[in-house]
């Protein structure tokens, strides 16, 4: 088995593994299918190449040559189609594909005739080397054309590619150049040019480069599959190796245990240690190669779901930062939120970064404005390209500053968080521990995650505001409650004080009444008894006269005291009246008339009462009402020198009216207004007529009538023309 056979076999094996892995990674993705087809072509070519190399007869050599060409024919078109599909330019280059497929299908069918591969013959060290048929020549031209075109296309794409794609394309290009150049060394001998296919081994190199791109730059993203496969292979190898070791030891010790015991034991033991081996190798791969055996898409997808259930801001930002750093194996991460009103950023969670470094990114508003405008993450690797493309000098400088800053603080990605088209914050990520750049898929996933995170953070913000509000509200409610309670206490105290005061007033009134009336009662009583002769007859007329005057003065004093006590009650706001229902008014008036008649007769004036037959009963405080009416009639008598006083009762629908009409001195217009005031100034004539009058009686009468919900007023045509006093009392109260 020669070198060329071995290299062909290796190519075949690697293609056979790579193709299915890529296909199984995503069966629905057309790019993956195309890569699998390409790998199939390479595998057919490689295995057939191997078999051709080990063929011992011309027949089989020719056969396998034709088989390997069958694979080789489709290599360029499948590869071109794969590249175009990968960079999403299939439609653009459709004509190349259609033409390519048509022509290479034609060549495929012609491959099994001598028109394509004519025959085989010994060339250099090879026993059987194929000779071209007539159709081989155009095929070769087209094959080279497509190979060169692929390289040209890849170079063109590399110029405009950014980020991870750029790195991937770089390696694809290198691999393609190496593979094409190496593979083309196969064609010299077809035309008897004595150059052996030394470059054949570069196909292996090409496979290695592609594998490297897969591993390092997530090409075809089958890292996880490769990793898992490797771990399983190692685990299986360990179990088998251990089993073989036991069997070897048994053999070495001259078979102390028969095979029917050793075999089941080894099998059982192997099954037992397989899983622990698997876990061990997974752990090692994770630690030393930063392999994650779970797709971080899945973890981040799960994170998105978890985000919706966390409302507390601190927990939420921790969840985001912790999950990102663990899943994507990062060295640093930070979550910053922006105050909508001030635009200032606050660090919510930071791992690995220094606080001042995190804030340095947003110190000026450039990054915020840039993210607001571009609406996509800022990737450190791509900033160079962005700087190259910008025309504006100021912006160019700003971007350069940003790039320098990101480099300084070792930030590799700034992911914006949007709320209603406004930036509400950002997630800053450091580098991956594996050293890999962020792939297109990473960025897509992070962008999707950032949308969910924005919503979750907004909800957490609102929740915090509601919490704050409710706490404030609770505080305000508590404060208000406390205020109300304090106000209530104050009011309660005030009420108690008022009650006490009221009680004190009552007590004062009662005490005053008692202390004033008691001696007066004695004075009046004893005078009465003396004048009645209870202590012996009064012989001396002068003494008797003086005693009568004494009695009169005492009576006056009693009247003054009564008036003062009555006013005091009104002044102190005491409840002066105590109503009774169905009080008849005639007896009250008849009593008053009876009491005042002597005085009227003494003055030689009349005093008469006119009343209708039926009079309604009213709700009144009889003694107080009597006092009020008494004062009015008494006044009328006092200020009448000739003629007399008529007391008339009238009934309307709702009122009982008591008129006291006199033919007395009358009242001036100005005095009528103030008649019922406490400090009413009596006219000169009134003062002369009733020198001891104080004008308080009318005040007391008006208060009593008001307390009865009635009205009292006076009318007079003027001095010397008499006056009429009206008292109106409601019938139905």
């Amino acid at each position, binding site marked *: 088995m020669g070198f060329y056979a071995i290299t062909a076999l290796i190519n075949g094996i690697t293609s056979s593994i790579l193709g299915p892995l890529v296909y199984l990674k995503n069966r629905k993705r057309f790019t993956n299918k195309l890569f699998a087809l390409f790998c199939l072509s390479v595998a057919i070519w490689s295995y057939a190449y191997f078999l051709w190399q080990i063929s011992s007869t011309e027949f089989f050599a020719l056969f396998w040559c034709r088989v390997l060409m069958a694979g080789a024919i489709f290599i360029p078109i499948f590869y071109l189609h794969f590249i175009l599909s990968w960079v999403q330019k299939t439609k653009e280059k459709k004509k190349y594909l259609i033409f390519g497929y048509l022509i290479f299908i034609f060549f495929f069918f012609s491959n099994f005739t001598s028109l394509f591969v004519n025959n085989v013959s010994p060339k250099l060290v090879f026993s059987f080397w194929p000779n071209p048929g007539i159709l081989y020549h155009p095929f070769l031209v087209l094959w080279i054309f497509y190979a060169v075109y692929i390289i040209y296309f890849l170079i063109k794409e590399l110029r405009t590619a950014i980020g991870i794609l750029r790195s991937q394309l770089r390696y694809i290009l290198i691999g393609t150049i190496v593979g094409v150049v190496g593979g083309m060394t196969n064609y010299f001998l077809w035309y008897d040019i004595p150059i052996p296919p030394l470059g054949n081994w570069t196909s292996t190199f090409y496979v290695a480069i592609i594998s490297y791109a897969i591993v390092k730059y997530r090409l075809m993203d089958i890292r996880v599959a490769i990793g898992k496969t490797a771990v399983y292979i190692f685990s299986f190898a360990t179990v088998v190796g251990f089993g073989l070791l036991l069997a070897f030891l048994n053999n070495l010790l001259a078979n102390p245990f028969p095979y029917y015991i050793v075999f089941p034991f080894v099998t059982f033991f192997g099954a037992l240690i397989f899983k622990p081996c698997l876990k061990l190798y997974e752990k090692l791969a994770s630690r030393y190669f930063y392999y994650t055996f779970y797709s971080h898409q899945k973890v981040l997808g799960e994170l998105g779901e978890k985000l919706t259930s966390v409302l507390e801001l601190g927990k939420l930002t921790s969840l985001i930062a912790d999950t990102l750093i663990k899943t994507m194996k990062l060295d640093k991460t930070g979550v910053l939120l922006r105050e909508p009103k001030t635009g200032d950023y606050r660090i919510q969670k930071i791992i690995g970064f220094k606080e001042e470094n995190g804030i340095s990114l947003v110190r000026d508003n450039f990054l915020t404005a840039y993210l607001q405008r571009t609406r996509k993450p800022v990737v450190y690797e791509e900033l160079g390209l962005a700087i190259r493309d910008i025309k504006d000098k100021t912006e160019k400088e700003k971007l350069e500053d940003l790039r320098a800053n990101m480099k300084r603080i070792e930030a590799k990605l700034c992911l914006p968080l949007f709320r209603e088209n406004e930036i509400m914050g950002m997630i800053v990520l450091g580098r991956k521990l594996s050293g890999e750049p962020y792939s297109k898929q990473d960025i897509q996933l992070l962008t999707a995650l950032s949308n969910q995170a924005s919503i979750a953070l907004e909800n957490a913000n609102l929740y915090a505001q509601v919490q704050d509000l409710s706490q404030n509200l609770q505080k305000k409610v508590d404060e208000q409650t406390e205020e109300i309670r304090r106000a209530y206490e104050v009011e309660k105290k005030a009420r108690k004080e008022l009650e006490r005061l009221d009680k004190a007033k009552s007590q004062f009134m*009662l005490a005053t009444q008692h202390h004033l*009336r008691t001696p007066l*009662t004695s004075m009046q009583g004893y005078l*009465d*008894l003396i004048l009645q002769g209870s202590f012996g007859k009064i012989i001396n007329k002068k003494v008797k006269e003086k005693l009568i005057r004494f009695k009169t003065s005492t009576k006056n004093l009693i009247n003054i005291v*009564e008036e003062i*006590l009555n006013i005091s009650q009104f002044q102190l706001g005491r409840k002066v009246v*105590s109503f009774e229902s169905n009080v008849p008014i005639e007896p009250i008036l008849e009593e008053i008339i009876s009491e005042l008649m002597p005085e009227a007769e003494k003055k030689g004036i009349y005093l008469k009462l006119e009343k209708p037959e039926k009079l309604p009963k009213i709700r009144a*405080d009889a*003694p107080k009402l009597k006092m009020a009416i008494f004062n009015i009639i008494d006044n009328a008598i006092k200020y009448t020198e000739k003629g007399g006083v008529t007391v008339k009762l009238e009934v309307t629908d709702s009122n009982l009216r008591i008129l006291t009409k006199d033919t007395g001195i009358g009242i001036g217009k100005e005095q009528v207004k103030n008649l019922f005031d406490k400090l009413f100034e009596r006219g000169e004539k009134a003062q002369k007529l009733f020198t001891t009058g104080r004008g308080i009686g009318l005040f007391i009468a008006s208060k009593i009538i008001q307390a009865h919900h009635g009205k009292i007023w006076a009318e007079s045509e003027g001095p010397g023309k008499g006056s009429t006093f009206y008292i109106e009392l409601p019938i139905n109260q």
Partner: protein
Amino acid sequence: MKKRILLIEDDREIIDIYTISLQDIAKFKVEAIRYGFEALEWIKKVKKGKAKKPDLVLLDLILPDMNGLDILKEMKKVKETKNIPVFILTNYSSSQLRALGFKLGSEEYLTKTKYPPSKLIALIKERLKEK
């Protein structure tokens, strides 16, 4: 037969004035009680038949040991005293006290200064005549 007047009053001068008036002028038989507890004991005695019922009671509101309205209440509770006419005779011209007095069963509420002995005697005679 002379009418009996019970005067429940603590002031000695008032007792003196009213006793002289009612006895000497009106020719009533007057008995005076100065303390509330004495009045209550009197009620018990009347109940047991150990004291004579008066024809009328003149009741002051403020006594040294209790107020007159409590005595009035007690009188109205006892069968033997509840129908004895009671005139409250007081220095207090409170409408509330007046209303309360009537509510508890007094027949008159008289202020002392307004009802000197002569006027009081006329009122008592009027009342006892009806009786």
